[in-house]
C-alpha cells in the first residue's frame, strides 16, 4: 500500500467510468428532454411534424446564442443582466441606420459592433473599476434600454430591407433555419473553446479561485473582459436575428430575455457560483425550454402559465440531485 510507485505522467483529465456518465447532469437533461418530447407527441397530433419541430427551434435559438456566452461568463464567476437591453439598443441603432438608408451588410455590422461595444463597456466597468458585475449590469441594463427609449419613445422602426429578413426567417436547407444552423455552429465553437482550449481551462480556474489564478499568472481581468465582450457580441448577433425575424424595432424588444438566458444556463448545469458547467448541458437546456414552451403552446396554454413550468423545472432540476444525495446519505431533515 505504501510503496505505490508514483505515476509517470499525470493525466489531463481523469478517466470517467460509465456510471458517472449515466448519472451526469447531461444524462438527466436528456431523459427530461425525451420525456417532454414523448408527452408532447401524445398530447398534440401536430407536434411530430418536421415544420412544427422547425418552428419550435425559433423559441430558443436567439436566447440560446446569448446563453452560450453567458455560460462562460457565469462559469468565470460573473454575470451579465444587461443582455436583453443590449439587444434593444443594437436593434434601435440598426433601425436608425435603416432610416438613413443603410443596406443589409451595414445593418449586420452595426448590430454586432453595438453589441460588442456594450459588452466592452460592461467589461471595463467590472474589470477596471473592480465593481460587482450583478450591480453594474443592472445599471447598464437600465442605461442601454433607456437610451433605446430616449431615441424611440413610443415609436417603432420599420422598413428593413427584404434581404435582411433572411437572418431571422430564412432556411439553410429544408426545415433547418438559418437561426438553428447558427446556434449549432456557435455551440460547437463554444464547446471547443470551453472544453478543449487552455482559455477554457482558465475560465473554469477563475471561477473556482480567482485569487489563486492571479498568483498563477492567469490574467484574470483580461479574460473576464474578453468574456464580457463575447456576451455583448452574442447579444448583438441575437439582436440581428430578432430584428430580422420581427421586421421592426420597439424599445421594449426582447424584454425579459436576460432571465430566460440565465435560466437556460443554470438549467444546463452551470453552477451559479462559478467554476463548473458544460456547453452540452446548456444546449440541452435550450432544447428543453423550447420543447416545453412549444408543446404547451400547441395545447393552447398561455405563455404566462408556461413560465410556471419553466420556473418549476429550474427549481426541481436543481433541487433533485440535492434531495437525492441527502436521501441516500439518510440525513434529510
Amino acid at each position, binding site marked *: 500500500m505504501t510503496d505505490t510507485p508514483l505515476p509517470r505522467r499525470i493525466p489531463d483529465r481523469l478517466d470517467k467510468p460509465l456510471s458517472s456518465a449515466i448519472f451526469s447532469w447531461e444524462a438527466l437533461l436528456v431523459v427530461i428532454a425525451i420525456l417532454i418530447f414523448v408527452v408532447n407527441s401524445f398530447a398534440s397530433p401536430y407536434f411530430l411534424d418536421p415544420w412544427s419541430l422547425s418552428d419550435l427551434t425559433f423559441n430558443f435559438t436567439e436566447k440560446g446564442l446569448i446563453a452560450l456566452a453567458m455560460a462562460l461568463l457565469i462559469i468565470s464567476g460573473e454575470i451579465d443582466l444587461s443582455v436583453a437591453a443590449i439587444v434593444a439598443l443594437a436593434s434601435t441603432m440598426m433601425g436608425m441606420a435603416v432610416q438613413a438608408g443603410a443596406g443589409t451588410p451595414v445593418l449586420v455590422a452595426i448590430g454586432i459592433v453595438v453589441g460588442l461595444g456594450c459588452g466592452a463597456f460592461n467589461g471595463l466597468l467590472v474589470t477596471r473599476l473592480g465593481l*460587482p458585475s450583478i450591480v453594474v449590469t443592472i445599471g447598464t441594463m*437600465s442605461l442601454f434600454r433607456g437610451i433605446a427609449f430616449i431615441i424611440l419613445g413610443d415609436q417603432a422602426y420599420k422598413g428593413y430591407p427584404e434581404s435582411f429578413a433572411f437572418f431571422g426567417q430564412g432556411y439553410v436547407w429544408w426545415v433547418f433555419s438559418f437561426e438553428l444552423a447558427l446556434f449549432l455552429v456557435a455551440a460547437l465553437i463554444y464547446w471547443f473553446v470551453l472544453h478543449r482550449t487552455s482559455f477554457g481551462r482558465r475560465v473554469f480556474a477563475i471561477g473556482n479561485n480567482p485569487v489563486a489564478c492571479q498568483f498563477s499568472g492567469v490574467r484574470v481581468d483580461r479574460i473576464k473582459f474578453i468574456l464580457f465582450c463575447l456576451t455583448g457580441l452574442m447579444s448583438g448577433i441575437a439582436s440581428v436575428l430578432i430584428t430580422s425575424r420581427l421586421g421592426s424595432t420597439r424599445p421594449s424588444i426582447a424584454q425579459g430575455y436576460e432571465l430566460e438566458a440565465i435560466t437556460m444556463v443554470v438549467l444546463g448545469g452551470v453552477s451559479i*457560483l462559478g467554476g463548473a458547467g458544460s456547453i452540452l448541458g446548456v444546449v440541452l437546456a435550450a432544447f428543453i425550454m423550447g420543447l416545453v414552451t412549444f408543446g404547451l403552446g400547441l395545447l393552447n396554454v398561455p405563455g404566462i402559465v*408556461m413560465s410556471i413550468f419553466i*420556473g418549476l423545472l429550474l427549481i426541481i432540476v436543481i433541487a433533485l440531485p440535492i434531495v437525492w444525495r441527502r436521501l441516500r446519505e439518510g440525513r434529510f431533515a
Partner: protein
Amino acid sequence: MKNFLKYREIWLLAGIAVLIGLISTRFPGFADPANLRQVFNDTSILMILALGQMVVILTRSIDLSMASNLCFTGMVVAMLNAAHPAIPIPVLIVIALAVGLVLGAINGFLVWRLNIPSIVVTLGTLTIYRGATFVVSGGAWVNADQMSPDFINFQRAAFVGLPVLSWIALLVIALFFLVMTRTQIGRSIYAIGVNPTASVYAGIDVGRTKFIVFCISGMIGGLAGYLWISRYVIASVEVANGYELNIIAACVIGGVSIAGGIGSVGGAVLGALFLGIISNALPVINISPFWQMAISGSAIILAVVLNARGERRQGRIILRKAEAA
C-alpha cells in the same frame, strides 16, 4: 465604521438636496413642502420594498421574486375584496402579510434546507408567482369599480397631515430601524453578511437567519401588494413587471453592498427617495419620461462606483480572506 456609515448617508442626503435644488431652478414649486410630501407619499411603496430587499442583500442573498410576490398578493387581496366587500381593510392587510409570508417562506425554505443559491431560487419563483397570478385570476383584471370604496380610500385618508400610506411607510421604516439596530436578529443579519464563517462560530444559525430574512422580504412584498393595488386601482398579471430591479437599484443607490454586510435603513430609504424624486421631477421640468430609465441606470452605475471606493477603505479582499482562513 459608524462614523463612516453616517458619512455616506450625509453625502446621499446632500446629493438629494442638490437634485431638488437643480429641479427647483426649472420648476420653483418643486421644493414646496406640500410637493415634497407628495413625492414622499409617491415613493412610499418603493421605500418599503427597498427595506425588505435590503435585509436580504445584507445576508449575501438576493430576492428577485419581490415584484412577482407583490403582483400575486395584490391580485389575491383585490379578488377577495371584489368577492367579499364586507371584509374590513385591516383584515385584508393581515391576509396580504400572511400570503406574502408564505411566498417568502417558500423562497427561504429552498435556500435554507436545500442550499440552493438564492438567485436561482428567486429567479424560479419570479416566474412561478407571476404565473400563479394568472392561474388564480384566469387572466382577468380586477378594476376600480369592482373594488370597495374602503379598499381604495384607506391609504388616501389624511391622518395628522399625512396620508395613511405615508404613515405606513414611516411605521415600516421605524420598525426596520429598531430591528436592525436594537435587536439580536438585526445584528445577526449584519454578521452573516460580513463573515458567514465567523458567524457560525459565534453561534448564529446562518441558514435559519436567511430563512427569516426571506420571510421578512415576503411579508413586505405582500404588504406592498395591497398598497400598490389600492393605489393604482387595477390588479392584473402585468402589475410591477420588472420592478424587482428598481427595488435592487434603490438599495444600491442607498449604499447597500451587494456583497453583503454593508447597508443601513436610512441609506435604503434615501436611495428609494432619490429614484422617486427623479421620476416625479421629469414630467414637471418637461423632460420626456422616456429619459427616466437611462437616468436611473446612470445613477446606479455612479452609485456602485462610489460604493466601491468607500468599501475599499476597509482593507483589501485578499487580506480579509487570509484572516478568515
